[in-house]
């Protein structure tokens, strides 16, 4: 077995509680309730173990991480351990007072999500009236605290045409970076796929707008653009490979190589409640299951891209082809690619209504 490199980043999903109800949320359909969340003590131990294991960055996310009262203390703990901490937030709970305290505790960066560039459509997609305005004020507070700001825009057929305006909004709010990421179809997003998957034409226009803005704004605004893999020819390198860089700890303490992995059947995911992060990373069956290339079958096994995209996404292979060990169906070399083409066909029709993310709305 080749040596296992230490993880780069810990995704600390502190809670599933969130005031928003985005229909593409990457949280599982079965949301964890507050009573099932790890304690403050547990998280402090996880952070210390992560730093010792070689983790360099921690991403505090959720749900809405600001729903946790101990967030400030956890940011301070991470900073004390030399971890570079990022806050991934919807910006709808709290404002300047909280942000100033986070900055003083050593927070390094804030990633703030918007659902669109207008309050009207943004609030409709988020299922929360007044959310957009609160986010704008939150962005101002982040800048006033001297923290670097990244805007996160999840795009799909119901907001994609606004990409140029989203970039303008990022400039107006003083962001140095904007992440324009197409919805990835897991969990709630898969449930809402027909309402979210863009048409080919929409996508091409947005991509063109991004490329033009990138050239114009070099050195002013960094634009990270994640294309929707359904429209591609080869899959994304999911999480840069299973168990290669990321360790994700869910609110319950379950550790997974990616946030969607818990849905994979036949894998017992370990918990930080009874295993150390080091054991989980190096020795758990779950993290070794799809590590490297040994698990691959054809066409990945002999493909020259096998260490570039690592066979694509295991969760997508399971969700679309029924087997996590198959080639990601998004790849045109996959024998299951027809299911992706069928979904793209469906996208050319009229979109159905959203199923909003709620506790127990899933079924």
């Amino acid at each position, binding site marked *: 077995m080749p040596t296992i490199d230490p993880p780069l980043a810990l995704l600390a999903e502190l809670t599933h509680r969130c005031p928003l109800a985005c229909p593409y949320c990457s949280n599982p359909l079965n949301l964890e309730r507050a009573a099932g969340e790890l304690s403050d003590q547990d998280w402090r131990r996880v952070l210390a173990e992560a730093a010792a294991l070689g983790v360099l960055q921690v991403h505090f996310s959720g749900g809405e991480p600001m729903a946790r009262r101990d967030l400030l203390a956890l940011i301070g703990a991470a900073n004390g351990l030399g971890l570079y901490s990022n806050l991934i937030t919807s910006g709808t709970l709290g404002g300047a007072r909280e942000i100033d305290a986070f900055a003083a505790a050593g927070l390094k960066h804030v990633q703030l999500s918007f659902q669109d560039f207008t309050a009207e459509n943004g609030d409709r997609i988020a299922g929360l009236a007044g959310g957009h305005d609160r986010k704008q004020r939150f962005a101002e507070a982040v800048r006033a605290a001297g923290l670097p700001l*990244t805007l996160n825009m999840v795009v799909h057929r119901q907001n994609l045409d606004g990409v140029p305006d989203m970039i303008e909004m990022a400039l107006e709010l003083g962001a*140095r970076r904007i992440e324009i990421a197409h919805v990835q179809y897991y969990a709630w997003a898969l449930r809402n796929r027909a309402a979210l998957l863009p048409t080919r034409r929409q996508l091409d226009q947005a991509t063109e707008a991004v490329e033009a803005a990138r050239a114009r704004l070099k050195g*002013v605004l960094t634009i990270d653009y994640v294309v929707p893999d359904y429209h591609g020819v080869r899959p994304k390198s999911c999480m840069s490979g299973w168990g290669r860089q990321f360790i994700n700890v869910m609110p319950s303490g379950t550790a997974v190589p990616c946030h969607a992995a818990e849905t994979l059947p036949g894998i017992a995911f370990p918990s930080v409640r009874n295993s150390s992060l080091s054991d989980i990373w190096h020795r758990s069956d779950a993290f070794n299951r799809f590590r490297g290339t040994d698990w691959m079958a054809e066409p990945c096994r002999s493909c020259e891209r096998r260490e570039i995209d690592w066979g694509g996404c295991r969760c997508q292979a399971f969700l679309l082809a029924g087997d996590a060990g198959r080639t990601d169906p998004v790849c045109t070399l996959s024998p299951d690619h027809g299911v992706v083409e069928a979904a793209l066909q469906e996208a050319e029709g009229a979109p159905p209504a959203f199923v909003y993310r709620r506790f127990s709305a899933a079924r």
Partner: protein
Amino acid sequence: MDRFVVSDSSVLSFAPHIVFRFDEVRQRWIILAPERLMLPDEQAVEILKLVDGKTGVSAIVDSLAARYDQAPRDLIAKDVTTMLQDLADKGCLAGADD
């Protein structure tokens, strides 16, 4: 905001919230930036160690030229400026008085 253009007379420092440090686990220098990790090569590390918010780009070049006396100063100046401009474009470096 405009793009920061690195020249001979620039004085640079790390942007706030950029961390340039030695990582004991990996035994190498790293740059930590928002949601991103950069692994500068040996040459870049030597240059970045001289970025302190006081030393100008031309003084950095001088000090490297003195250390590696087989390379022509022009060539070193070009490499240094290119590397620093790239990091400035990524938001890692800023003018010291910004």
